[in-house]
């Protein structure tokens, strides 16, 4: 899509007048390519290790996996991914539609409250759900006490339970993206469609939803990748997927190679997800993103619709946030006396620092990459960037080791040189114990979370807008700063929020790449859950949620003034 635009752009705009572009024609292309490769390198290295391992399988272990493991995990992974994509996709899109386009009681509250589940890690939600809904949990116990039997109650430790919980945990990705699409495209488009004689329903289906498709597709793709990479939640349900099989091959059979081979098969799934997303974007129509939402009033829901909107939002809010968070608070209060001390300031500060630094680095990298794709897309850069975003679907532990081992090897080589040069007085290098390595690993893992929103946002700034601006003498950096940046603001905040919250929750990469003694809130959760002490994990989990609320609150403020900030 954007490659076509680039051609159109080059043809219709007198490029020779743009000194920067002309002089850059020979020099800049390789520079941008080099920049792309460098930025994507942390993600490409572990993926390369996976491909290499997958291409040289150990026959004996492979036969075992193919006979006993693969059929089950392929089926389960497919079911889970499709189930979560459908359920979370429809929850997210519906809620976004309601809060962005309609008026009903509680709308102002739900607008931001429905984002809160983003801050609850999926494994925590899973544990709370199983604890509450399993046979021995309070609900079924109560049902048995009241009626004598709870056998009709659906079993929670199943694939269905996993789909249910992962959908509640991930729908905010779609909600966030779809909502910003609905908000910026404006209700005017819908109004226009209705004035042309379409009913409200038809206008929604034929105009508003197709216009929001790149966002919805990007959100669902993120959800699918999260689901493919999830280990914590599926483990609680004991639902075997690729991630659990990878873990089992590694920890149980002591075979890193078998683990990488399984990760290689998993990558095929990721490719399918990405291809479907591309395809659904390719046919999308883009409109001007000039915000018109202030001009057209929200649809005021009446009668039953009004009630359904309120009840639906309430149910999702209760299930995905209020109830689990209450359970966490209760557990926290029980153990707080023993566990809460001054160190928690340090844990929280380090979590916030890592999350903020990662958000800045990843958003900056995503902007750069998205601009390269917009202005100088080549087959090669596109391939590199698409590949790099796959890190979002690779299980965290695999990716962590895939990055750590090459960094350590580099460190050892440098250390050797240093010793040759300085002899025994050479200082000890610890590249892999630095924040640079941590951030590089986060970049590899979360690039997709930053890149998707920004790419979708940039796609909607049509080249007509650029041409109009250039016609007014706004060119080069000015164009970016005065025209693009204001239009991209929502996408940038969305990207930063997703990365920030993801990093707050991230465990395996933080654990193995952190400098010695660097404890964060997420590593506290690990300390407690490693021996199954889930109740004591509530304290750091609550702290993660509270810290995660900060960007969510900022984001909501931003999107409620989206009107004023988006007018170019």
């Amino acid at each position, binding site marked *: 899509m954007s490659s076509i635009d680039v051609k159109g752009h080059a043809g219709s705009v007198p490029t020779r007048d743009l000194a920067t572009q002309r002089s850059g024609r020979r020099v800049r292309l390789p520079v941008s390519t080099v920049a792309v490769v460098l930025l994507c390198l942390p993600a490409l290295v572990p993926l390369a290790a996976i491909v290499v391992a997958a291409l040289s399988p150990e026959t004996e272990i492979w036969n075992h996996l193919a006979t006993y493991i693969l059929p089950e995990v392929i089926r389960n992974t497919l079911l889970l991914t499709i189930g979560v994509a459908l359920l979370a996709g429809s929850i997210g899109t519906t809620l976004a539609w309601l809060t962005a386009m309609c008026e009903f009681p509680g709308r102002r509250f739900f607008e931001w409250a429905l984002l809160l589940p983003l801050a609850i890690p999926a494994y925590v939600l899973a544990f709370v759900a199983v604890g509450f809904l399993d046979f021995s949990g309070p609900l079924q116990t109560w049902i048995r006490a009241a009626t004598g039997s709870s056998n009709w109650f659906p079993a929670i430790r199943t694939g269905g339970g996993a789909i249910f919980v992962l959908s509640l945990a991930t729908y905010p990705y779609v909600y966030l993206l779809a909502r910003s699409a609905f908000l910026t495209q404006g209700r005017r488009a819908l109004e226009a469609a209705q004035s042309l004689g379409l009913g409200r329903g038809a206008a929604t289906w034929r105009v508003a939803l197709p216009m929001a498709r790149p966002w919805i597709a990007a959100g669902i793709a993120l959800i699918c990748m999260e689901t493919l990479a999830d280990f914590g939640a599926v483990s609680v349900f004991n639902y075997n997927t690729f991630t659990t099989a990878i873990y089992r091959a590694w920890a149980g059979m002591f075979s890193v190679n078998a683990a990488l081979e399984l990760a290689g098969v998993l990558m095929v799934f990721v490719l399918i997800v990405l291809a479907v997303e591309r395809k659904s974007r390719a046919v999308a129509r883009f409109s001007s993103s000039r915000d018109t939402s202030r001009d057209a009033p929200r649809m005021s829901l009446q009668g039953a619709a009004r009630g359904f909107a309120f009840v639906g939002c309430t149910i999702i809010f209760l299930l995905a946030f209020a109830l689990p968070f209450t359970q966490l608070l209760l557990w926290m209060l029980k153990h707080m006396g023993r566990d809460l001390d001054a160190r928690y300031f340090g844990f929280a500060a380090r979590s916030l620092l890592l999350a903020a630094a990662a958000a800045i680095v990843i958003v900056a990298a995503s902007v750069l990459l998205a601009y390269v794709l917009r202005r100088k897309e080549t087959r090669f850069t596109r391939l590199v960037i698409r590949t790099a975003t796959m890190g979002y679907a690779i299980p965290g532990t695999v990716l962590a*080791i895939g990055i750590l081992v090459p960094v350590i090897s580099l460190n050892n080589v440098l250390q050797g040189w240093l010793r040759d040069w300085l002899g025994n007085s050479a*200082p000890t290098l610890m590249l892999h114990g630095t924040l640079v390595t941590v951030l590089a690993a986060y970049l590899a893992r979360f690039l997709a979370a930053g890149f998707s929103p920004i790419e979708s946002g940039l796609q909607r700034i049509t080249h007509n807008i650029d041409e109009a601006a250039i016609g007014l003498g706004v060119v080069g950096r000015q164009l970016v700063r005065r025209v693009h940046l204001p239009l991209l603001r929502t996408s940038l905040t969305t990207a930063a929020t997703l990365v920030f919250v993801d990093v707050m929750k991230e465990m395996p990469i933080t654990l193995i790449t952190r400098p010695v003694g660097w404890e964060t809130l997420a590593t506290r959760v690990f300390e407690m859950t490693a021996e199954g002490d889930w109740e004591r994990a509530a304290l750091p989990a609550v702290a993660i949620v509270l810290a995660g609320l900060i960007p969510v609150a900022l984001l909501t403020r931003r999107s409620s003034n989206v009107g004023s900030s988006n007018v170019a």
Partner: protein
Amino acid sequence: MVRLGTLRAAGLGLAIAASMLIGGCAQRPDGVLVYSARNEQLIKPLFDLYTQETGVPVRFVTDDAGPLIERLGAEGADTTADVLMTVDAGELWYAAERGLLQPVDSPILKANIPEHFRDPGNRWFGLSVRARTIVYSTERVKPEDLSTYEALADPRWKGKVCLRTSKKVYNQSLVAMLISEHGEQQTETIVRGWVNNLATNVFSNDVLLMEAIAAGQCDVGIVNTYYFGRLLRDKPGLPVKLFWPDQQGQGVHVNISGAGVTRYSRHEAAATKLLEWLSAPKAQALFAGENMEYPANPAIKADAAVLAWGDFKHSEKNIAQAGALQADAVRLMDRVGYK
């Protein structure tokens, strides 16, 4: 909007990167660095006490054993780690197998830790003992009906057994030790019998499993005793009890949490001293007591609460077997559909 020239921005970025790297080339500090799969809250009190008594600082990195062992392997001769500590013998066996641990010839460790709780090559030593035993409902099961792990495969327990996932290393060790006793074929029959007797999908942890027994979803299960202790401390009076199986035969299956000195440690002497200190009476009581486990040093009694569960005979087969046969155990469990 702050405006930065490209060069200035790049310069700033480099400066930040450099300042982050500086932390990475500090001189190797004295003291001992431990890579630990045992949780922070279970080791920190001991390390603090050690530092207080000896003045030797102990630093540590916690994570799952898998990533820690990969990291140790990649660091090779340049590692700064001196001790690897895990919560399972199989992981120590694997680390030793990969040449990441070194033999330690310490009369103190040999005297304190029984032979079957340490590596025959003295590359690792058990520091606490974890018993994996049978738990039953006091409302629906008479202890006379219980005998061995193997007997839980009997059809009389059809629909009454709860098990934890085979992904947990504790079950892999248990099955590995069964293989070492009965051979693969017979063990496969036993484990298939367990799976056939399952009352519900396997659980992701021992506590949920015991709560299911208490709630009446099933009657018997297999758990580590410290989970039982933790649960009963929280909910006294729960109608579940421990049973010590196989008292006429091998005895209760036990695993260890233990440690070894890394192959390329630059502080072998200090690392060995730490292990010796951990194997001595005072530390042993704490090490096991923090988590309601059993001390590995037989001279020390377990915590009073733990002793109240009764005395039992445990298997004295060398625990290194659990590591050597673990991969076989995993495949066996795959074959019989133990998830």
